């Protein structure tokens, strides 16, 4: 590997561990360790994946899951950003909101699912609600700490140059907190997949979470793995998209 640049070598190294793991898994099963009906080989999963892509079944569940994730993500993160910024600007807001966050953040959001089913019914609304609630917390906490840590000089400059509270909010506090807001959104994105898939285990007939749970009950282990892999891929793609948006929206962040 002496002819390769450091970067290429690092990229290869990066791929070795997952590929190695898959290869080991495949070889062990082919050598007769484990029952392939319960533990499908990577090739079995790939075959089933292809089949489900072609039949359109996977696309159907994926669409439902993405719709729920992104709606919940927006519904939860926008108030998270607004309230987080207000907390940094106005002390009474912070004093009012702080104990609520401290008390509600540690509650596993999936534990609210029965309550949400009661309130929002068995449709998409209850799933969107659980994602929104779960997303709200990491976003508000990151937004607040981003806005609270804006250097004092920027507040001084804004005041000296006649900024009103509204200008302060829109042009100073929001942008000053934006790098941290994106850090919060990145966590929130992962959280929204985690919570939604778990929520889809119950009381629904669609979505990747339903696919995983249902195939487990039918002992279609290969289908279950297709669901798990799909969630991983969706999360990866969504994160990469968010990073691209971040690069576009925060041009002042030094490379």
């Amino acid at each position, binding site marked *: 590997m002496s002819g390769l640049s450091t970067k290429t070598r690092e990229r290869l190294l990066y791929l070795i561990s997952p590929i190695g793991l898959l290869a080991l898994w495949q070889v062990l099963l082919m050598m007769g360790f484990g029952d392939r009906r319960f533990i499908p080989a990577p090739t079995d999963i790939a075959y089933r994946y292809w089949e489900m892509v072609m039949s359109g079944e996977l696309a159907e569940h994926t669409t439902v899951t993405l719709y729920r994730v992104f709606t919940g993500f927006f519904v939860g993160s926008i108030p998270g950003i607004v309230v987080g910024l207000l907390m940094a600007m106005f002390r009474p807001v912070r004093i009012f909101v702080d104990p609520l966050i401290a008390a509600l953040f540690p509650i596993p959001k999936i534990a609210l699912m029965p309550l949400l089913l009661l309130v929002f019914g068995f449709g998409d609304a209850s799933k969107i609600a659980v994602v929104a609630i779960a997303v709200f917390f990491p976003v508000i906490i990151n937004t607040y700490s981003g806005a609270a840590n804006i250097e004092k*000089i*920027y507040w*001084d*400059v*804004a*005041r*000296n*140059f*006649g*900024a*009103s509270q509204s*200008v302060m909010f829109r*042009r*100073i506090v929001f*942008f*000053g907190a*934006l790098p941290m807001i994106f850090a919060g959104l990145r966590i929130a994105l992962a959280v929204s997949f985690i919570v939604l898939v778990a929520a889809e285990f119950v009381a629904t007939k669609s979505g990747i979470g339903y696919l995983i749970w249902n195939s487990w009950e039918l002992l279609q282990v290969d289908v279950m793995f297709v669901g798990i892999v799909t969630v991983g891929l969706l999360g990866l793609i969504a994160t990469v998209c968010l990073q691209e948006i971040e690069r576009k929206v*925060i*041009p*002042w962040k*030094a490379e």
Partner: protein
Amino acid sequence: MEQPVTAARRGAAVRIAAVRKEYVSAAGTVLALSDIDLTIAAGEFVCIVGPSGCGKSTLLRILAGLDRQTAGTIAVEAAGWEVENAMVFQESGLFPWMNVETNVRFGLDTRGIPRAEANGRVDEALKLVGLSKFRKHYPHQLSGGMRQRSAIARAFVTNPGMLLMDEPFAALDAQNRVILQAELVRLWEQTGKTVIYITHSIEEALLLGNRTVIMTAQPGRIKTIIDVPFPHPRDLIQLSASPEFGKLKLDIWRVLEEEVNRARAETEQ
């Protein structure tokens, strides 16, 4: 002290009377400023010099409306100017998330100046400091000198009666400092605005201003005020090398030395 500016173009006049500033902290009350009396004429360039902790930045912050005095009065006469003052901060304080143009326009946006007019004035201000080509750059893409030029443009564009400058060139390298000092003096000669300039360098104070206010620390007081006799327009490089400049600097150091020794003698008694 006559400046080569017409009466109509002169900046704000300031009267500071018996100003006192105390800070209350866990350790007790700290007296930051005491018995500050200072009258600044319209269009004057006043430099305030002193060691760190003498309260010179506090005084400037009070003038800028960022802080309030504990006692005493400050009266500013800035009729005919759009805003009373605009500040140029030590580390420029340019917003990293705005490009140069937007940073410069900020003080116009906050005051509801229509976009077309604001853009015209920003063009002019950028031309004035030689940054027209860099209008779309972000602060992190600029050198320290360019950042301070942007900050000066941002202050000038609002058409203030006085410029408040808090060691604006302290973080620059020597060459850039000389260039920016000369540009500032040129701008002042052209516009006749009142300038209050904080520095810790006596040499810089004598080079730029009409008067130098020397402060001492603990508590911050005005020790002495020196009229700087050099006429404008000034060639700063020539001035700094002239024997008259050297002599004035030496005289001031002698006065300070005497006072330092006297103070030491008093405390040792």
